[in-house]
């Protein structure tokens, strides 16, 4: 990789600084430094210039475009480099998706890059798993060992005997390609702990997973989502801008999140009862005929059946389930219907909540359908054309491979290329329908993010070889057999990534290294290339990254110059009315209120409410996160200052019933595990609910800021699954909370 000062973006970056300025109308800056001396008392002038001279004498700062990797959003950044070190990361003002911002995590990427606990060399486990005895290997030794293990497993258990978790990185596509050419169908990643239920629900209603046009919306109901803390660009920013323009925001959440704190109305809904609210909402809209009848005629499939189906779900009934008064449900239904079509039920992102999460999200999707907001301003949008193509590669056929992925048929709505980690883990432990003995993970930390950590540990006992490539020694790496050091996003060249920022943009970006890779870190393309040579399919990785990018941008060659000049290429493709003249990708070719495929497969074709389990003396545990941590990426010297451990949130009245006090240590116990952490009494909690933030109580001592600090959600959450999608269901755990003894 090229050293920073030779970076091709240097010149462009320098120009950008000037443009940042004019965009904000903040000109003339302080060329004034020199002028400062004029017309001031001599002594003061001396002091002032001396001060400024300090900055002027320092080494020059160069600027380089890049794209953030502190979460999945990929916000545009400008890295400032001085003396070969990244000294600051600023937003790329031309980056429309993130509206020219960088959040706390993006700013703290400097600490991520220079983390003293970074992995530096390949490491081979010497003692028992998790014991922490490692032997340094050269890359040659490490790759030889990995190739040998993969070959051994493939020969004995077929190629599907290796599971791959390629992560959500810009280089994940290389590991997916590697897995497919190697011959394993068993690919699963973070998404199966995250958004699959929502995706499934919208695919089965609209034929697509939508983007929320928050900016132009006039009325938004947010349920099962916390976009002001779980930042999604541009939605998070657009919410506040929409509010300025008069958009009303109603939040349903058992917890007073920051989204709730800034909403117009917040209802502390009972956890797991969102569907009751939306069934009643659509009851009002259909009973009172508050929908656009012409639109319904043209676009909706099964409206009559649906209207009949929800007749039973009155606001009065729903109030008894969800705790929101019937008159409020009625009022909100009338208000949002009046604001339609520039109104929406926010689709959200993480929907790994309940065993019927797909159906819960279906009830929200159907409410959107009745607002006739699909493909329209202020509603929910279809995917836009970006023009980045996925380079073709041959997938070989292996005769001895099983017929399908290990979790095939275990959930009726499994999304084939994502699978279900929860179901795969169960299958591996059982050894059925066939054994899996190897695991290759890249920047995925199931040990800390997947419910029921003890089961993940049990799964490891069935695996002969676990290799993990990551930047730091995550809990998953700590329990691996071979650990490979990855460069951070600031140290590598990445392929093109296509992004859509709601109605703001459809864009393409790539990353060029801002500084050279430190230590012995090697990127995933290099690792796959080297392994492919050892495993006998070098022709699948016989390209350079430049050639790969060229192939990705074949249909939009103008993107090359744009990305070099501005850090981003925009495709001025159609935003609204993409489906104006074409049928939807559903079976009915319309929006399916009634899903025929579900009916055919014996599933409820329309959402049927099932009351959540309750147990006397037990609380429902919900999990979530803050705006300054992504999942288990908590070991950051700067960000940890905002929150150095998690606590258990509980309503003071609930605590009083067990005479628990604020700040004391409590034990939180489920059927699968028990954790100890401090109690935080907070009135902004629904009384049957307790809350814990993710990312603490790490097992890896090489994450010293979170090792044994606070408690891990993975330890205490039971591993339920969404029945339809197989997505992990993380809000199905009932826990008891007791004072810590001794």
């Amino acid at each position: 990789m090229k050293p920073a000062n030779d970076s091709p973006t240097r010149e462009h970056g320098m120009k950008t600084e000037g443009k940042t300025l004019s965009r904000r109308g903040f000109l003339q800056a302080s060329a004034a430094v020199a002028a400062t001396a004029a017309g001031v008392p001599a002594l003061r002038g001396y002091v002032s210039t001396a001060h400024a001279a300090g900055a002027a004498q320092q080494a020059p700062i160069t600027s380089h475009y890049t794209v953030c990797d502190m979460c999945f959003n990929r916000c545009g950044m400008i890295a400032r480099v001085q003396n070969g070190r990244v000294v600051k990361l600023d937003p790329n003002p031309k980056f429309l998706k993130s509206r020219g911002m960088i959040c706390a995590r993006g700013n703290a990427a400097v600490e991520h890059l220079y983390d003293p606990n970074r992995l530096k060399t390949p490491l081979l486990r010497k003692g028992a798993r998790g014991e922490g005895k490692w032997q340094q290997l050269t890359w040659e030794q490490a790759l030889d060992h990995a190739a040998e293990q993969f070959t051994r497993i493939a020969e004995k258990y077929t190629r599907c005997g290796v599971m791959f978790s390629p992560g959500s990185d810009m280089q994940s596509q290389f590991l997916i390609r590697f897995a497919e050419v190697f011959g394993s169908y068993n690919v699963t990643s973070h998404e199966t702990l995250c958004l699959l239920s929502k995706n499934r629900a919208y695919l089965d209603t609209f034929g697509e997973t939508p983007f929320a046009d928050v900016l132009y919306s006039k009325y938004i109901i947010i349920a099962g989502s916390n976009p002001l803390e779980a930042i999604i660009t541009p939605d998070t920013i657009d919410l506040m801008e929409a509010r300025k323009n008069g958009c009303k925001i109603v939040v349903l959440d058992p917890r007073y999140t920051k989204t709730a704190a800034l909403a117009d109305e917040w209802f502390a809904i009972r956890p797991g009862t969102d569907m009751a609210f939306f069934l009643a909402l659509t009851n009002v809209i259909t009973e009172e005929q508050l929908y656009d009848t012409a639109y319904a005629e043209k676009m909706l499939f099964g409206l009559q059946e649906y209207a009949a189906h929800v007749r039973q779900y009155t606001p009065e009934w729903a109030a008894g389930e969800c705790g929101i008064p019937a008159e409020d449900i009625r009022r909100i239904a009338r208000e949002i219907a009046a604001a339609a079509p520039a109104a929406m039920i926010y689709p959200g992102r993480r929907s790994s909540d309940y065993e019927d999460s797909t159906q819960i999200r279906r009830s929200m999707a159907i409410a959107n359908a009745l607002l006739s907001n699909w493909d329209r301003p202020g509603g929910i949008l279809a995917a836009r054309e970006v023009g980045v193509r996925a380079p073709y590669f041959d997938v070989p056929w292996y005769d001895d491979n099983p017929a399908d992925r290990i979790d095939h048929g275990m959930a009726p709505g499994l999304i084939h290329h994502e699978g279900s980690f929860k179901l795969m883990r169960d299958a591996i432990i059982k050894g059925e329908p066939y054994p899996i003995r190897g695991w290759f993970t890249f920047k995925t930390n199931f040990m800390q993010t997947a419910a029921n950590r003890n089961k993940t540990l049990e799964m490891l006992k069935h695996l002969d070889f676990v290799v993990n490539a990551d930047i730091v020694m995550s809990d998953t790496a700590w329990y691996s057999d071979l650990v490979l050091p990855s460069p951070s996003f600031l140290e590598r060249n990445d392929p093109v990534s296509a992004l859509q920022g709601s109605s703001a943009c459809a864009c393409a970006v790539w990353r060029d290294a801002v500084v050279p890779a430190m230590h012995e870190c090697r990127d995933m393309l290099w690792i796959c290339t080297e392994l492919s040579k050892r495993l006998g399919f070098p022709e699948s990785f016989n390209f350079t990254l430049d050639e790969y990018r060229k192939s990705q941008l074949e249909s939009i060659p103008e993107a090359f110059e744009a990305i070099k000049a501005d850090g981003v290429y925009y495709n001025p493709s159609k935003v609204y009315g993409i489906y104006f003249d074409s049928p939807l990708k559903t079976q009915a070719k319309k929006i399916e209120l009634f899903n025929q495929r579900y009916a055919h497969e014996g599933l409820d074709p329309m959402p049927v409410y099932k009351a959540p389990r309750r147990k006397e003396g037990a609380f429902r545990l919900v999990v979530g996160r803050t705006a300054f941590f992504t999942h288990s990426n908590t070991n950051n010297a700067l960000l940890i200052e905002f929150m150095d451990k998690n606590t258990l949130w509980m309503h003071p009245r609930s605590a009083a019933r067990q005479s628990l006090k604020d700040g004391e240590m409590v034990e939180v116990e489920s059927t699968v595990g028990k954790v100890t952490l401090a109690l935080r009494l907070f009135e902004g909690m629904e009384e049957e609910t307790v809350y814990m933030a993710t990312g603490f109580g790490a097992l890896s001592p090489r994450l010293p800021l979170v090792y044994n600090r606070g408690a891990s959600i993975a330890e205490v959450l039971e591993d339920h699954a969404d029945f339809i999608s197989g997505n992990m269901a993380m809000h199905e755990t009932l826990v008891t909370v007791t004072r810590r003894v001794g």
Partner: protein
Amino acid sequence: MKKYAMVIDSSVCIDCKACMASCKVQNNVPHGYWRNWIKHTIPDFSQGPLTRTHFQPGGCMQCDNPTCVQACPSGATYKDPQNGIVHVNEALCIGCGNCIKACPYGARFRHPDKRVPDKCDFCFSSGRLERGLLPACVDTCPTKARVFGDLNDPDSDASRLLRDKPTVRVLARGGIDTKPNMYYVAATAPTDWVDEVEFPGAFTALASLVNPVVKVAVGLSALGVAVMWAKQIFSPDKEESEHESSAPGKD
């Protein structure tokens, strides 16, 4: 001549901490300390569905009547007439800590290694303004709650906002008008966190009378300075321990 100021729409602040993180990286602010902050109101849950929290970003207000400057015996803390920024000249600072107490906003802290006060200077000393960049907190802010500009330039974003919108300022308790250059659009809360200005007794009279330039010249020989110096060396760092305990986000 410029008059830099910040006009803040605190109603769009989402308390994401980006401004705090950005400032910390840009200015190498040590662990446990911050040059800027986000305060918040205490939600009143008796309001039911209408319960709200107001988040309020802040930092040094670069006051036109800077009590820190008046409290400084050596002239190290001064208001730059060229741009209105209140600077600390570390070479002249004797480390007495008076300026820290004199700031009703708690905008200053004693740097744990350098033993001199540290505070926001709108990113002047980091060189951002000279390079044509906005202060780090302003540049990074997702909702652009923080708006920065020159009030002497009628076309600056800050001037325009100030002209178009009613604004309020957060004032010290106890009657001293610090004339802060941080404006909040429409209204802001909380305001009960602001302290009284605390001047060191022996210096109150002198500080208000003597021209700061003169103070630099005579300051180091003044007996009072020596006393303050000694006091600083032997007394515990009260403000430091307070600062630690008020670190944000206890959970």
